[in-house]
């Protein structure tokens, strides 16, 4: 295969895969972890799915490829108690996924000492509707990877794979966000109203989000009902406002919610906007270090109180 300036060399993934298998086998053999959470190949060309490997021999099925899109931090939350019950877990993370781990640690959902983090040097992954028979390139790469600054994760227990200089993809999300910010509030309202009208309330966005681990979601309550559960304009709008507000200052920007939305609603634009607001208001960024507490869950004497009238 010829590698143009905007194509990622598949050999990078092959090398990372080999190193990953080696590391997974070692941690399972020496008892560092009872299970390794990674990815394995799916039946369809170029597809991959989360894998939970407990047997050293099973390490051979792990892969790293452009189809390894999932943020596996989901499996460390209390929403996945059947996975957490296995014991000390090792988890494979891309740089973008690591932000979610840092957040979960900050929210006391995870103890850093209880997990073993295998960071993977990541050249990028496929976008939601990419043709997975093609190599990773301008047409197939995920929007978040176009603007990625964390290709090689830091602060992990071990890193597998190495990266050469990567091709620069054309950013899109930042431009789209700028376009949205340039709109009048009425235009913006229309934009989101139109998008949210398509929501079918399948909750795939909620279920893949590492921060949606509440055992009782406000949006499932029916006695009394807080948010209409049927996929109609009123309930949809309420659901998306609840989602955005509840994740403000917590969202790690992994864009999983947007990737999985079967109705192609650009949820990460909303996440990014909220993140920007949080930065402007509190100088806070969901980062790579475990934070004590996010700005919306803590109180400081010097908090801005000008909104109280």
């Amino acid at each position, binding site marked *: 295969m010829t590698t143009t300036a905007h194509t990622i060399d598949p050999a990078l993934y092959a090398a990372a895969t080999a190193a990953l298998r080696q590391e997974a086998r070692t941690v399972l053999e020496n008892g560092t972890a009872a299970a390794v959470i990674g990815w394995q190949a*799916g*039946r*369809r*060309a170029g*597809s*991959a*799915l*989360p*894998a*939970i490997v407990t047997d050293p021999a099973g390490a051979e099925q792990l892969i790293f490829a452009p189809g390894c899109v*999932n943020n596996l931090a*989901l*499996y460390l939350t209390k*929403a*996945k*108690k*059947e*996975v957490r019950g296995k014991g000390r877990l090792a988890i494979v993370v891309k740089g973008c996924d690591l932000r979610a781990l840092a957040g979960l640690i900050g929210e006391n959902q995870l103890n850093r000492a209880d997990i073993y983090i295998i960071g993977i040097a990541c050249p990028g992954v496929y976008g939601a509707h990419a043709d997975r028979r093609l190599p990773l390139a301008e047409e197939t790469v995920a929007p978040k990877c176009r603007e990625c600054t964390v290709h090689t994760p830091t602060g992990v227990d071990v890193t597998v794979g190495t990266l050469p200089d990567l091709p620069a993809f054309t950013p899109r999300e930042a431009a789209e966000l700028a376009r949205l910010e340039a709109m009048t509030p009425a235009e913006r309202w229309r934009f989101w109203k139109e998008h949210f009208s*398509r929501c*079918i*309330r*399948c*909750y*795939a966005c*909620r*279920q*893949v989000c590492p921060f949606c681990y509440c055992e009782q979601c406000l949006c*499932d309550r*029916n006695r009394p*009902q807080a948010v*209409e*559960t*049927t*996929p*109609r304009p009123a*309930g949809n709008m309420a659901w998306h406002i609840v989602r955005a507000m509840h994740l403000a200052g917590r969202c790690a920007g992994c864009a*999983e919610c947007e*990737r*999985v939305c*079967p*109705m*192609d609603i650009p949820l990460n634009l909303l996440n990014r906007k909220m993140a920007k607001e949080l930065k402007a208001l509190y100088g806070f960024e969901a980062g790579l270090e475990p934070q004590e507490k996010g700005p919306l869950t803590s109180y400081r004497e010097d908090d801005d109180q000008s909104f109280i009238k």
Partner: protein
Amino acid sequence: MKTITEQNLRALVDALISDGKRVVGPRVAGTMTLYEPLTGGAELALGELPRRSAKETFLPLCETILTYEQGKEAVHLGDVDPVRLPETVLIGARPCDVAAAPVLDAVFSWDYRDEFFLERRRKTTIIGLACTGGDDACFCTAMGLSPADSTGSDLFLTPLKGGSFRCDAITDKGTALLAAHAGLFADGTGEPLPLAEPALGALDLEKIRAWLDGHFEDPLWEEIAARCAGCGACAFLCPACHCFDIVDEGGTAKGARRKSWDACGFGKFTNHASGHNPRDVQPQRYRNRIMHKFKYYVDKFDQRLCTGCGRCIRACPVGIDIAAVLEEINDK
């Protein structure tokens, strides 16, 4: 043999609409194609498999079944009369969508007759379309159907080389529609376009059912479904999944009782009022999905709740592939 040109097919949509019928067909909706009510034949978009299935023609995403309003003296109830539902033509639906309609009839006319569903079904004429484009998620052939299967269709279109369609009347409804618009059809034949080629080989569906019979408890459920995120994407997009929820929404002054899609993957799906949840973890919920489709429904109605459309495979956020699951059971 009857044929119809693409231009006349669009004219047929226009004619049906001017007859006062609701015409539902694949239509470009933003970044995807959806089965939606058409405002004219020009909107018909036959190229891409619609993201959601055609079941919403009979089982809408959400429908109001009752309204209430507090009056001065009494509460006024507004009953929604299914008889007022419009005559509908579903056009250009894929065989894997259409084949699910008779499957759904069984459950909606069993011990309780769901008048909303049945009235919509009674009033709908289905014009199916042979499928010439699939991907490696499609497996209708493994489910005993095919890209040219007319099961469930009243009239069936087969794309021909050169852009027109062969039309086969399958039922009386189809014959009636053909007769009512005879001017748009011509006598003739032609060479069919090559059909889609689903990726999966044959499956022994009886063997799969028999295995499920004896493996309510099996490590397979944990192996496959510990990764399941528990969303409703697979069920919502499926032409054969039909679970729904009924909720009252609104305030004390006024509101509505609504019926909308539900999914067995949701953690609260089986939550009892007592707080007990018999399907406590995700593998048990995924097991129910497979059991319902390939055992319970077969036991009860001698039909399967899957037509192999592949939508759940394409949409699953964590890559769970029902065809791969069936293959694995088939190989046991």
